[in-house]
């Protein structure tokens, strides 16, 4: 089938503003958007720039806006979208474009680091055995630990669009990952970090994050657990 892609292009060395360019090619139902971008790059236009690595939804490199929705290019197939009309490919919104679909993600990573995304436990353990944790408690972490830091959620959130200081759903999800880890001892420290006007309280449960998450994580539920924890702490 004939497919038309309209891709937002920007080369900072020559362009003042981003602009769309169109590409027509023969596509197949089972091609991913990443396959299509590769086809364009390898057969038509070598200058097209985008990030990718694993190509099956695990590394989180190729989050982008596909027909107005944030998703991974490698996990979206042509059969999943309307190809009768022109397919519009843009970088994720609200982050600075470096070139074409490549964004400057520094701010996103800084917010992730702000929640202290590592286990903090000062109680000594004997070297030769694990800290015990029930499978039930472990599984409470699994959904949040699925996060691949693709930034689809944070950049889909209207609170992010209106306030670039907002810490965003990805960082909050990471906070959950450690606050609710029975092995962690720094829940209070992390809760203090997110308990600010630009922290968790900017989340107005709009649910865009859930819809955009390629790993199907119920991010809003995880954020609501943090909110509950904060409320019970105040009482």
């Amino acid at each position, binding site marked *: 089938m004939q497919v038309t892609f309209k891709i937002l292009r920007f080369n900072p060395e020559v362009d003042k503003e981003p602009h769309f360019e169109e590409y027509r090619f023969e596509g197949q139902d089972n091609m991913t958007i990443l396959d299509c971008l590769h086809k364009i790059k390898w057969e038509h236009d070598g200058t097209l720039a985008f990030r990718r690595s694993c190509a*099956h939804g695990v590394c989180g490199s190729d989050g982008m806006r596909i027909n107005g929705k944030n998703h991974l290019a490698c996990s979206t197939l042509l059969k999943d979208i309307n190809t009768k009309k022109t397919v519009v490919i843009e970088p994720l919104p609200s982050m600075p474009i470096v070139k074409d679909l490549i964004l400057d993600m520094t701010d996103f990573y800084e917010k992730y680091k702000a929640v202290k995304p590592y286990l903090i436990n000062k109680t000594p353990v004997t070297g030769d055995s694990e800290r015990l944790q029930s499978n039930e408690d472990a599984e409470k972490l699994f959904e949040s*630990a699925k996060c691949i830091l693709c930034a689809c959620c944070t950049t889909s959130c209207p609170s992010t669009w209106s306030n670039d200081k907002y810490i965003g759903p990805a960082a909050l999800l990471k906070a959950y990952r450690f606050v609710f880890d029975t092995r962690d001892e720094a829940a209070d420290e992390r809760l203090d970090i997110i308990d600010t006007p630009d922290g968790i309280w900017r989340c107005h449960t709009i649910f865009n994050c859930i819809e955009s998450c390629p790993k199907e994580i119920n991010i809003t539920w995880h954020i609501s657990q943090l909110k509950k924890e904060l409320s019970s702490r105040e009482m």
Partner: protein
Amino acid sequence: MIHKFDVVIVGAGGAGLRAAIEIPKEYSCAVISKVFPTRSHTGTAQGGVCAALSNEEEDSWLDHAFDTVKGSDYLGDQDAIEIMCQDAPRAIIELEHMGMPFSRTKEGKIAQRKFGGHTKLEDPKDPNSKRIPVNRACYSADRTGHVMLQTLYENCIKNNVNFYSEYFLTDLIIEDGICKGLTAIDMATSEIHTFQAKAIMFATGGYGRAFRITSNAHVGTGDGCALVYKAGLPLEDMEFYQFHPTGLWRLGILVSEAARGEGGILRNNAGERFMEVYAPTVKDLAPRDMVSRAIISEIRAGRGILGSDGTYYINLDLTHLGKKVIDEKIPEITGFARTYLGVEPTKECVPIQPTAHYAMGGIPTNYDAEVLADNKGTLVTGFYAAGECACVSVHGGNRLGTNSLLDIVVFGRRGGKKISQFLKTAELHDFKTDPAEKTRVMMDKLLTQSGNEKLAVIRRELQQNMMDKCGIFRNEKDLLENKELIKQFKERYKNIAVQDKSKVFNTDLIETIELGNLLDIAESINEGALNRQESRGAHTREDFPKRDDAGWMKHTFITKNETGDPKIEYKPVVITRFQPMERKY
């Protein structure tokens, strides 16, 4: 721009990050990577990491070592294998202490499951009793590599490790047997950066992208190994390349052995469980090389299933496992089957085919990650390697499932420790010539050369030929043809016109350099395969179908000679306590 560090680690997968964590704070350390650290390929490992923790049943590190030696088809160095398997329980407990989330047993310990080639004696008191599958693989659902990579990166943040992300390695600078530094391109600007360091570690990963169907990420282009080879240093056992039996048909995306560890069964077009014939005791849980050969043999015998595009596949049957096991134990891989093939694994079989997966060979090191300059054990001062790019050799002719994640944490740490010792007395060495010159010349050449060759066309042809002529089954005729083809590809490479001339994220240029690396890697794999006249582990010669211990129980060391042609020497295998025997399962 020149940067000076005590140590520079290239690669931010498991091995590089684990090594970085080991470097004491008083030393300056940089990790450079062509992708942001959590995008590294370690994250795609699924099923588990083995250690004889005995959390589910009695087990011992000696059994783990025996299985690894046998799995390696007696090409693994047994001193290094003993170190790895004995250190495994400590390494896993350490990861748990770092915060890695694991699936748990009823008692709250780390859960373990079965995996291909991992066994123990049915009766531990009777050494002649049969070996049965054992629960040895520690896991976190089927995202073990993902959470391991996240945990190691998190600990690097905690330790304030210095990262240079999206820097692409272009040159390794070795003068008078001393490793003095490296150059890399900052991909965001195309600026050349020189890193001068007392110690360099390569943790640059594998090269599955040399083959058409692969489980490897697009970044798996063997850049580190290729630079070592270009520098005139040896690569070890390159002919040993593992095909994982269960890649998604046509795509090569990995379906972990955990699927069979949980009870999945391979079936041919008659629905027969054919592994009963090839490995009567462990059946579907035989090591990967054997299962991959069995699958191709079934297809060749006309017992494959014809796909819509005219190619054949084999079925992986998970339907009897039930929705609960599938959703809880292997959710990720069954998700891949749904997304990419539109198959519902609770109701239908998953079409699979073998996929190029793991390099047993690579940069030769001793068991402290120090790089060897030759087959006599001479060291390259200040140069270290760990992870898939290295050949210790703990995997020999065929790696057992889960041992890659173990390898990276055990030898990443040992390398980090050895570097820390070395730094106590080490110093920076001045470069004799401009270290950036070679990279500058290469970039200028690639950006100005004209011709009508296309990067993607040459790469596709290379990958297809490596698959067809240097894949699971090999013979002299095919390998000679492939050798000639690789020579032609190298000539055609000189006529590639890089379309993108810009400086900001010129991924066209980066991919072209990567193809140059893959061509050298392919040459070394093919040459090793042509030279080794026996069948051992993953290297199967149809014209030499038997293992030949008298002639070939030795490691291949391949170097480029003065004229740029490959030259082969050998190094003996280290045997400690396990004498070679026939490999049956």
